């Protein structure tokens, strides 16, 4: 799986570019690169469902980001950090925190099952019984819409909440007196 490691390195590089560039549109494009390489990663990991959804959702995410940035400004807030000698101490503190965290993560992840050999305790039931009991050939869809349909109901509600939330936040006049004032001006 060498190609997966190459993909991961490319993804990390694109993420660094996305975070550090000064130009917002460039940052959005870099984020798009990370998103599409995640989609390629899904294909490498034998997850076609996820690859389709990730590609299309990534397109929409870039469209939404571009819509907002084009309506406002695409200049990042430039900040000059004067590197002063006194800054050594906080960086040392952050450094050893990061080191401690890295050691802890490696210790914890050693106990995870190795990459590529999942212990599929519950999933083996889905595979064995999936076709007979739900009738769906695509086991992922049978998990989503039958075994764990309640999750998908919850998820559809999250999207519905977000849509109503966006409509609440976008409305121009939250309070009635602003509305009346605006009507009087027109």
């Amino acid at each position, binding site marked *: 799986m060498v190609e997966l490691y190459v993909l991961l390195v490319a993804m990390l590089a694109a993420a660094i570019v996305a975070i550090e560039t000064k130009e917002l549109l460039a940052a959005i494009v870099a984020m798009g690169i990370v998103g599409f390489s995640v989609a390629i990663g899904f294909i490498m990991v034998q997850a*076609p*469902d996820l*690859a*389709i*959804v990730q590609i*299309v*959702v990534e*397109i*929409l995410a870039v*469209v*939404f980001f*571009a*819509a*907002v940035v*084009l*309506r406002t400004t695409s200049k990042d807030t430039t900040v000059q950090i004067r590197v002063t000698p006194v800054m050594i101490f906080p960086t040392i503190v952050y450094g050893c925190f990061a080191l401690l965290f890295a050691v802890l993560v490696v210790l914890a992840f050693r106990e995870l099952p190795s990459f590529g050999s999942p212990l599929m305790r519950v999933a083996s039931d889905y595979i064995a019984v999936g*076709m007979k*009991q*739900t*009738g*769906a*050939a*695509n086991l*992922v*869809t*049978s998990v*989503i*819409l*039958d075994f764990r*349909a*309640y999750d*998908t*109901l919850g998820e*559809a*509600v999250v*999207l*519905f909440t*977000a*849509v109503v939330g*966006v*409509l609440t936040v*976008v*409305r*121009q*006049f939250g309070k009635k007196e602003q*509305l009346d004032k*605006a009507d009087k001006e027109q």
Partner: protein
Amino acid sequence: MKGMSAIVQTVSRLVAGMLFLFGCYIILHGHLTPGGGFAGGVIVAAAFILQSLAFGSVEATEQHRYTFTSVFESMGGLGFVLIGFIGYAAGHEFLRNVWASFGEPLRLVSAGTIPLANIAIGMKVGAGLFAIFLALGASRFKMKD
């Protein structure tokens, strides 16, 4: 929202219909091939977004379009909850796939309520994301309330 150049308009006139059809295909065949309600819904939303980006739209049509999408979205959500109530009405638990053995496997008409749920999810995701696009970027009209 002003539209784009003539080239983009002609291309999108051809592609938008195909994209919408492809989205519906993904939704309907969710239980047979990869994809499903989510992927298909997002593709349908992309078709509408392509159309409204390429051709621009007068303020009136956006208000009409927005109310249409919110009706569609609520119907998608209601559809999914009603599918849950089907199991409930049939005496079993909530969200039970009651007609699981209906139709023979690997055919379009199979797997009981899963295709119906796929359609409901596809409607909801498609309409919802298009409503977000209308609210976020494209629309010049100010939503008063």
